[in-house]
């Protein structure tokens, strides 16, 4: 019996062993195939409506970089497959799309290419699903500065409002001191971005030049077609300098209409969003001497790498890149660098690798970009102000912001807002 039993056990063991071997033989290639399966990255962005041009440029820039990463072997051996969906610029739709990308499409990473309102919605989805998420277009500082918002799996890979305000304030104060500009007026779109950005700019302008007086404010509606009443109000107020964070079509309308009142020859104008090709190439009569922060221009940083990247983008898509374009390209570059550093494509490990990661980049102020570990946000990017000329390169010389100063004042700002 015992022998028989032993004999039976042996036969079963043989069968089990053979089965296991067979499964192993069959499964082995499946496992290696699974490892080589493309990694899906979901990307909600704005592909319709008035901001569609920026969303399209985000998609273009991502695809430009993904092609390079895939050609170099992908993310730790897995090629990237982008799944890009239109949120129509609506926060609730952005959240729905983000959730769908993860739950239905099987995306393992999110590149959130939404404007601020949508970004906060996608941020909550990332928090809920614990999915690695790179915010690429939201400039609202609180998204990463506010500890209540912070989650270990979400990063900001784009510029932010507080940095722009510090650099803008410092630059404007320097010009104001040189030209004795003390009487200012502001004209910005009447919604959260316009009001917050203007308040921060004025705060830092006064920080660097305390004798500045803001004589009046104008708050045209978002997408307002006619600025006649605003322009005449500015002319009546007679400020020495004007600050505006109008953008896109609103800014170009304002410039074209301001031109016929000869506004820009009478008043020193600071338009933070002017130096982006979306506005520079559309305005037919771009005035000389408008001060602007850089959004994206191929001449800043003035390096061959930056110019080459802009030319490659233009060659592929027949238009110049935008501010959203460089930011989204940067997100892919960081993912590739993190995967290389940690030799993984696992979201949690990639997040660990991203914290404090520095990469070489055409968009860095010194050729490098860093994701600061403490608040998981981008620093070291090219940021500065310059003045316009009517033809290419539109903003030939840009005065770079001082990152040491930015970081010092940003820390003070965080302390003031109880973020530290």
């Amino acid at each position: 019996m015992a022998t028989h039993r032993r004999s039976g056990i042996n036969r079963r063991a043989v069968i089990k062993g053979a089965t296991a071997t067979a499964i192993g033989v069959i499964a082995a290639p499946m496992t290696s195939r699974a490892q080589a399966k493309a990694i899906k990255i979901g990307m909600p962005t704005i592909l319709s409506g008035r901001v569609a041009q920026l969303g399209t440029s985000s998609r273009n820039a991502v695809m430009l970089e993904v092609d390079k990463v895939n050609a170099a072997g992908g993310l730790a051996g897995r090629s990237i497959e982008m799944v890009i969906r239109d949120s129509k610029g609506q926060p609730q739709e952005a959240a729905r799309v983000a959730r769908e990308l993860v739950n239905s499409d099987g995306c393992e990473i999110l590149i959130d290419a939404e404007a601020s309102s949508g970004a906060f919605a996608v941020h909550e989805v990332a928090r809920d699903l614990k999915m690695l998420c790179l915010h690429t277009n939201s400039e609202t500082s609180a998204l990463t500065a506010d500890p209540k918002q912070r989650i270990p799996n979400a990063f900001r890979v784009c510029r932010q409002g507080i940095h722009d305000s510090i650099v803008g304030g410092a630059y404007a104060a320097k010009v104001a001191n040189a030209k004795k500009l003390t009487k200012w007026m502001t004209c910005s779109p009447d919604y959260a971005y316009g009001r917050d950005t203007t308040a921060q700019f004025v705060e830092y302008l006064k920080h660097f030049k305390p004798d500045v007086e803001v004589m009046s404010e104008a708050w045209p509606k978002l997408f307002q077609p006619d600025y006649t009443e605003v322009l005449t109000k500015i002319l009546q107020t007679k400020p020495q300098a004007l600050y505006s964070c109008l953008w896109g079509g609103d800014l170009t309308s304002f410039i074209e209409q301001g031109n016929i009142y000869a506004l820009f020859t009478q008043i020193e104008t600071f338009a933070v969003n002017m130096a982006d090709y979306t506005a520079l190439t559309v305005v037919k009569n771009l005035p000389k001497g408008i001060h602007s922060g850089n959004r994206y221009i191929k001449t800043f940083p003035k390096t061959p790498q930056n110019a080459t990247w802009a030319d490659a983008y233009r060659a592929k898509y027949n238009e110049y890149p935008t501010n959203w374009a460089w930011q989204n390209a940067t997100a892919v570059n960081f993912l590739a660098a993190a995967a290389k550093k940690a030799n993984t494509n696992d979201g949690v490990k990639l997040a660990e690798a991203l914290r404090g990661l520095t990469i070489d980049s055409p968009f860095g102020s010194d050729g490098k970009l860093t994701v600061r570990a403490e608040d998981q946000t981008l620093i070291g990017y090219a940021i500065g102000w310059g003045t316009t000329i009517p033809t290419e390169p539109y903003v030939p010389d840009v005065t770079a912001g001082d990152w040491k100063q930015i970081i010092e004042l940003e820390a003070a700002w965080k302390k003031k807002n109880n973020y530290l």
Partner: protein
Amino acid sequence: MDLASLVSCFGSPACVITQVTSGLIIGMLLFLVAAGLTLIFGVLKVINFTHGAFYMLGAYFALTIFKLTGSYVITLFGAAFGTALVGLVFERLFISRVYGRNMLMQLLVCYGFILIFDDVVKIVWGAEFRSMGMPTIFQVPPIFIAGGVVPPFYLFLVGVTIVIGVVLWLVIERTRFGKVVRALAYNPTMVSVLGINTGILYGLVFALGGLLAGFAGALAAPVRSLTPGMGFSILIESFIVTVIGGMGSIVGAFVGSLLIGLIRTFGSVGFPLFTDGLMYLFMVVVLISKPTGLFGKEIA
């Protein structure tokens, strides 16, 4: 509220001249759009919600024609007649099928075509905003009158619009065509009994409304960003104008446009955060005191 600035503005000739001319500029462009809207309503009894889309088409036609010809005169007429043609075809193919039907049906058709026209613009000209640029002849410094600033292009815009307004009034009030159109508004059956093809007349009136909107779009194109959906905001303001002036009254549209223009410009000085609110407030006051609008009886 900044009443001190408003009082100070009324005490300064420079401020008054600048604000009045600005009011005229805003008002005249509104008048062109509102006149077409009110004409179509007065005769066809259709609230044409696609009228803003015709303004948009006029602006985009202007963009293309100006790029091709470089002549602003050809641009103005080309855009206006191009839009009129679209209006004629649109009326014959679609709007003519909803005359006398439930207003909801008319609204549904118009709203559907707003979306279609917006998408057509996206397909033909792209989704991004565009700019036509100022014609060279108007790239000159503004004129200063008693310290007030008046850009030459806006003088041209106001002048042309006043001429169009006068011609339109003469055509409607003093010509046989105008008499027939007015008769059509009162009693279309009687007009057709007299052997006049009312279908063609309806089409022509709709085309005339389109022509005015297209002309307005071409006049706005040098100074406003062109983008799909740009007709919506002017449509809302035009409705306010027609409600204030009286639905169906061209004179009412003229007066209403001027009043809205002046409310906007002086309101921006005295009530900078309530300029839009002032417009609606004025409309409410008019509706309460005279529900048919200021000149509403003319079409009754």
